[in-house]
């Protein structure tokens, strides 16, 4: 069976690496990027199937990164993570092409469910 390739983009290195470790334990091939530029480079050179993307990062806004990813590979599905109080930013992300969004701190089961659905969509593309 093909392994899902996942990229986690978050400026919180500890968060990204711990989440990556948990994904690896579940058989998901995971790489991490700690800023928008690094994320786009990884998408360009080693495109993942799915991306988990933090909305607020110091160098590039998550929405900008989302647009960059979609410009490079429209079939990559992106799940946004938002720490904002309202759902507005997540909805804005979906309007710009994100598959879905989750509020931080994420529930792993919710995230895995969304990843599964996103991968199904990606596989059909």
């Amino acid at each position, binding site marked *: 069976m093909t392994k899902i390739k996942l990229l986690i983009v978050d400026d919180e290195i500890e968060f990204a690496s711990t989440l990556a470790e948990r994904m690896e334990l579940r058989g998901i091939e995971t790489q991490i990027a700690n800023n928008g530029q690094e994320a786009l480079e990884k998408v360009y050179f080693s495109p993942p199937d799915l991306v988990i993307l933090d909305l607020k990062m110091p160098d590039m806004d998550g929405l900008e990164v989302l647009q960059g990813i979609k410009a490079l590979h429209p079939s990559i599905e992106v799940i946004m993570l938002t720490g904002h109080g*309202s759902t507005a930013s997540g909805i804005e992300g979906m309007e710009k092409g994100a598959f879905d969004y989750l509020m931080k701190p994420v529930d792993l089961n919710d995230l895995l469910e969304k990843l599964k659905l996103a991968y199904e969509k990606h596989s059909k593309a």
Partner: protein
Amino acid sequence: MENSIRQEQIESFGRLMAGFSHDMKNHLGIIRESNGLMGDIIEMNVLGGNETTIDRLKKAIASIESRVCITAIMLQHLSGLAHRSDTPCSSFPVNDLLTEECTFLERFARLKQVKQVLEPGEDIPSVYNDPSLLQHIIYRAYLLCLEQLDPNQSLVIITGRNGKNATITFRLNGISQGSLEKVSFNNLLPAIEKLEGTLKKGGENHNDITLTIPSLSVTEK
């Protein structure tokens, strides 16, 4: 001039609080994932160890997870509460604003051993008004209501609609009839006037205080 400085102060404070809650969510995210990773490792039985130790670890992990969830909800509400002061006037759902604030007001009731019950009504209209001023009025009214209540009594907060206006009723369950008549809410009146709202005592058992919040037209404020 003084008013505009005050408004800027409120906005600054709101932004600082919103930033704080955002950062706290990031810390919580790391705590949650690290805790989850410990759980994963235990589930995989990598560590070995006797059953009692494993059970104790599992309980501790579950307790951390539960507290993280509670704190995340509180931070969600803190963030919402803080962002209300982003602009002097905005259109907002009264139920949302009240739920956010009651998350933090509940502590005052708990300390007084009064039960807080929130009963958000259905189809409550969003109102265009000053949300941070309404937060202030709710806070003051809530504390005044608590002063009238004794341990084991309850403060029920109900939202409703009155035409295009939204209403918030504070029902003081358990107080003796007529005792509310002596309570003065005069200190709140200037702020309520600024919202162009009203505050009335009444109810079937004369134990209600109802705040009416109108929706202002954009040009009014």
